[in-house]
């Protein structure tokens, strides 16, 4: 049977067909850069924790709670960054000239990281809110928008998991991402307005004057967690590439098998019509 299997082009599903040597050296450089990002992120996290929990002073108004300032806002920032990247990648996929399944993988990778960061944002925000406002949850515009964003992108990830032809799936999810993303400003606007009619805006944390070291620690946290985000997306993207390759390799064999099925039957013509 295997003797009948013809060689199948591995470039079938848009995998790069560049010579191996080129791929290898490029891959190695990317690999090195990614590892540097990973190490820098890890060092940054350790530094942020050390500065945040031990070195920086407690705040005059918020006391020790101010230490949450070094993780919570940067998580929220990463979540929004992730959704922005996901949206941009989806738009690139939908635009015919830049249509490439790599953009689809990037969109998925970034959205998944975004959901992780959003979940952490919600939990840390709640942990901050309890001692500050006396309640785990307030219907604050930002909180409400973030929560809706979370479920919106959970839906997007569910849509991505639906099996199907890669191109079909990519187009479907890209359109879904577009629709979801357009919802974000509308949600934010409506929720803000809704709240403004109800009660005075809640105390926004971080209003108190910020100590120099505190500002630097906060800045560090933004850089650090952005690096972590980059590391996540790069790895998730690579994983998606591997999965696509696995699918394509499986496909190459399915194709060969399908052809062999015809080849084998052609030999004994009497069977063709049964």
């Amino acid at each position, binding site marked *: 049977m295997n003797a009948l299997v013809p060689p199948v*082009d591995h470039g*079938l*599903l848009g995998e790069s067909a560049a010579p191996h040597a080129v791929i290898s050296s490029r891959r190695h450089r990317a690999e090195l850069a990614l590892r540097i990002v990973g190490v820098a992120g890890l060092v940054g996290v350790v530094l942020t924790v050390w500065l945040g929990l031990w070195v920086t002073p407690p705040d005059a108004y918020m006391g020790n709670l101010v230490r949450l300032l070094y993780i919570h806002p940067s998580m929220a920032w990463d979540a929004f960054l992730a959704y922005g990247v996901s949206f941009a990648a989806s738009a690139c996929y939908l635009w015919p000239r830049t249509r490439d399944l790599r953009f689809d993988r990037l969109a998925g990778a970034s959205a998944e990281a975004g959901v992780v960061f959003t979940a952490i944002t919600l939990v840390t925000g709640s942990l901050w809110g309890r001692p500050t406002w006396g309640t785990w949850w307030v219907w604050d515009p930002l909180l409400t928008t973030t929560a809706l964003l979370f479920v919106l992108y959970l839906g997007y990830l569910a849509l991505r998991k639906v*099996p*199907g*032809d890669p*191109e*079909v799936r990519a187009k479907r999810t890209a359109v879904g991402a577009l629709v979801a993303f357009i919802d974000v400003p509308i949600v934010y606007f409506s929720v803000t307005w809704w709240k403004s009619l109800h009660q005075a805006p809640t105390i926004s944390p971080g209003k108190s004057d910020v100590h120099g070291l505190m500002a630097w620690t906060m800045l560090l946290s933004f850089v650090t967690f952005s690096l972590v985000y980059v590391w996540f997306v790069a790895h998730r993207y690579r994983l998606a590439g591997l999965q696509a390759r696995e*699918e394509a390799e*499986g*496909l190459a064999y*399915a*194709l060969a098998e*399908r*052809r*062999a*099925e*015809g*080849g084998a*039957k*052609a030999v004994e*013509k*009497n*069977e*063709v*019509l*049964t």
Partner: protein
Amino acid sequence: MPHAVRFREAVALAGRFPLLSGLSLEVAKGEVVHLRGANGAGKTSLLRTCAGLIPIAAGTAVVLGHDLCLDRQSLRREVGLLGHAGFSYEELSVEENLAFALRASRAEMGRADAALERLGLSGRVRKTPVGACSAGQRRRLALAVLVARAPRLWLLDEPHAGLDLEARAVVDEVVREAAASGGTVLLASHELERAAALCDRVVTIAGGRVIAPEPDEVLDPPIAALAGGEVGCDVA
């Protein structure tokens, strides 16, 4: 001679399963081609691909001048597919379904009555909701839509299946007329004698590819012998 259908090493997929595995086929305009092959060989997939329902994953496919990789939408009004399912709405009557299909494809309404008449759907059946129609009547309706639309490329998937003798004769007549008026026909069928009488050429498909495209295969002895014993194959 310009081609109505030209496939070169076309691959079409359903998820991970290759429906077409590098199929090459050329059909000239005005030709009537009989597609044959075992169940699962790829006949239906080929017809559905020609109708623009299945995207091409690799290779090239051009149907009536439309490249299937680039544009499948504008092809739709020019081809007619008679598939296994009827594409009809159960709640609507036979004539309403026909009218909807014709309006949708911007075809003339003038031929609607004649088409219904011809397929024996002109009496009481005409006002019956499709949900209450028999399988054979639905099949007739699907064919009536095609007859009224008169597409340039006819894609007939087992057109005789499930029909009575009278309607089968109408199918044959329709195919001959389509060919006579310059239409191209791809006819997938297990009824070899019947198809042989209608078609100019036989194309055998197996494993998602054309394996015997040569015209001299038409009267290949083993196949002609088989054709005699093939009558009971119809899925009535």
